[in-house]
């Protein structure tokens, strides 16, 4: 009999203690945020993988050599690298990138492509607002129209280099610097 009453009253007491917890939350501010209004404050963290991009420098140049290692490594066949063979003015044939197609819809954001890229030509950025109206818009071309591969300085010791072209040397050094920063 005694247990019957103590059970009831301790039960009610414990229920009230639970209500105290929710009551405390009721008067404390919400943890959720209004999304489009506070867009500027609510940026994802720097390393967040949201979209694959191919950075271009100010001369509309990228670092992709169209080797296709990224496409080979992608577990989901998300990347298509269309390339063609051209002959440049010196008569040397080389492979250039035509189209770097990235299907955002089938990307699983594992980061393998950017990790294996020997040139550091592709990287994941923070833009997470992917909503589009048709699925075909999710297939993105990453190389900008008219862009070309950046000419990287030949790995030659500076002393051995002819001193006749200092201006050119500077120009080549800039993208190299950028390359190091990216890594």
């Amino acid at each position: 009999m005694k247990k019957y009453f103590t059970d009831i009253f301790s039960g009610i007491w414990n229920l009230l203690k639970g209500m105290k917890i929710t009551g405390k939350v009721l008067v404390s501010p919400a943890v959720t945020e209004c999304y489009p209004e506070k867009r500027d404050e609510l940026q994802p963290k720097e390393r967040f993988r949201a979209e694959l991009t191919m950075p271009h420098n100010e001369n509309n140049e990228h670092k992709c050599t169209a080797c296709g290692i990224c496409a080979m490594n992608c577990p989901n066949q998300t990347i298509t690298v269309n390339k063609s063979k051209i002959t440049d003015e010196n008569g040397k044939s080389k492979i250039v990138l035509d189209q770097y197609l990235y299907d955002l819809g089938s990307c699983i954001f594992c980061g393998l492509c950017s990790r294996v890229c020997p040139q550091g030509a592709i990287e994941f950025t923070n833009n997470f607002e992917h909503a589009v109206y048709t699925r075909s818009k999710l297939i993105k071309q990453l190389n900008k129209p008219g862009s070309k591969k950046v000419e990287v300085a030949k790995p030659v010791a500076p002393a051995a280099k002819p001193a006749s072209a200092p201006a050119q040397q500077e120009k080549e050094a800039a993208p190299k610097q950028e390359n190091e920063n990216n890594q």
Partner: protein
Amino acid sequence: MEDIKKLLAKVAPGKEVAEGTQYPTIELEPNEVRAVAKKLKEAGFDYLINLTGVDYTDALGTVYHISSSTNKTAVVVLKTKTADREEPVLYTVSDIWKSADLYEREVYDFFGIRFIDHPDMRRIFLRGDWKGFPFRKDYNEVNDTPTTNVNIDSLETLPSITLDKEGKIIEKSKQLFGNNEYVVNFGPQHPATHGVLHLRVSLDGEIVKKVDPNFGYIHRGIEKMCESLTYPQILPYTERLDYLSGSINRHAFCMCVEKAAGIEVPQRAQYIRCIFDELTRVASHLLGWGCMAMDMGAITAFIYGMRDREKIMDIFEENAGGRLMPAYSIIGGLTKDVVPNFQQTVSDFVAYMRESIKEYHTLFTGNPIATGRMHNVGWLTKETAVALGTTGPTGRASGWSNDVRKLAPYAAYDKVKFNEVLRNTDTCKGDSFDRYIIRLDEVLESLNIIEQLNDNLPTDGVNVKVPAIVKLPEGEYYQRAESARGDFGVYIKSDGNKNPYRVKFRSPCMTLISALDPLCKGEKIADLITIGASLDYVIPCADR
């Protein structure tokens, strides 16, 4: 190791124990398996970790990983195979180890090996009318499987085979439910099955008479896909098995490959991996706690669990770049070092979480409605837990000490002091409440581990150089890890190529789901939901 070899010599006289393998291995003829298995069971090997089907090209076979609930560190491997590819049959061990029930159905589904005297030889993941057995190496992917399932009856009829006196195969079948049974479908779309699990429940009023889980609604054939992927490519798929302990699965796969390839991972990477594993476990248990509360009707508690889990997700996002799928471990270490304020963030979180747990106890553990619903419901004895192979918190709630972190320490777990959270075996009933409370206790223990690791983070690098194309030497490799739901295992059979020959993931969730039927019998509908929530299974882990 020597003791086990002696034991093996006793249970399987005349059989040679293979040299150079990770675990003591013996190969058996199909008709010897049952005798050896019985003797092993008598010798205390009562826990079947894993049963893997393998296509050896010239033969089809199975690999049994067996351990013991008393001699916890011991693992033995049995192998058997049959050369008959047309009508392959093997002998069942499902009456010796209950957990083999589902494993053998899986082997039948993937390889077409039928098990003699197995009571239920339905396909498990694929449809009943599927043509061919996809894990066979000669499987033709282009086949005439109809696009719509015309053979729904295959769910209801349990085929089985048995041998007559002359050794001929006799086919039998029986019905799952009687004609007068009130069978209700819980799922595949149901709020409380935690995913697309299909439970067919036979009811008598409010009382559950029988539960028949039907798998495969989220079967993606990950193991089959792995056979055509390189090792780094498999990594993102491991996270998608049990998405709530993704980091741990990935860690386990990395360890397996590293062990096989002989890659030594720097200490710092191992510590950080362990911190991430434990954070994942905390996050998973918080979600498990919240989902359990929500399944019992307390939606607010669920939101509180999610609120605190969000802090872990933020840590993942900041360091690894992903939230649910951090993709942090890679073969040879980590993708990047942690951010400079990592240690501060983690220790802040640990302090915050300890306060939150107290709040959870006040809000939910103390609630008489909640305790009334959890106490004395869904008893799982230690023996049943071992037989079913329900590892992890569920098994430990029944008093079965099975923490892989303790019994086969990996990464940095041998460098920290922690207790295996175990419900007291004397007073323990192994009911829903034990399974509930053990998760919150484990969160506290995980916070202890995180604190120790976080305070002693070594300063060597976070990864070592691995070859661009990882190739494993020929052989079989097995790695166990303690995921948030139990004993997660990775079995890799390599033939020396850049792709694995066969990959099998030991799913802790499949055995958890198989525990539903024995646990729910005689309980009420509401208890079915509570028990399901207390087992805390994740369907993609079971379906793979």
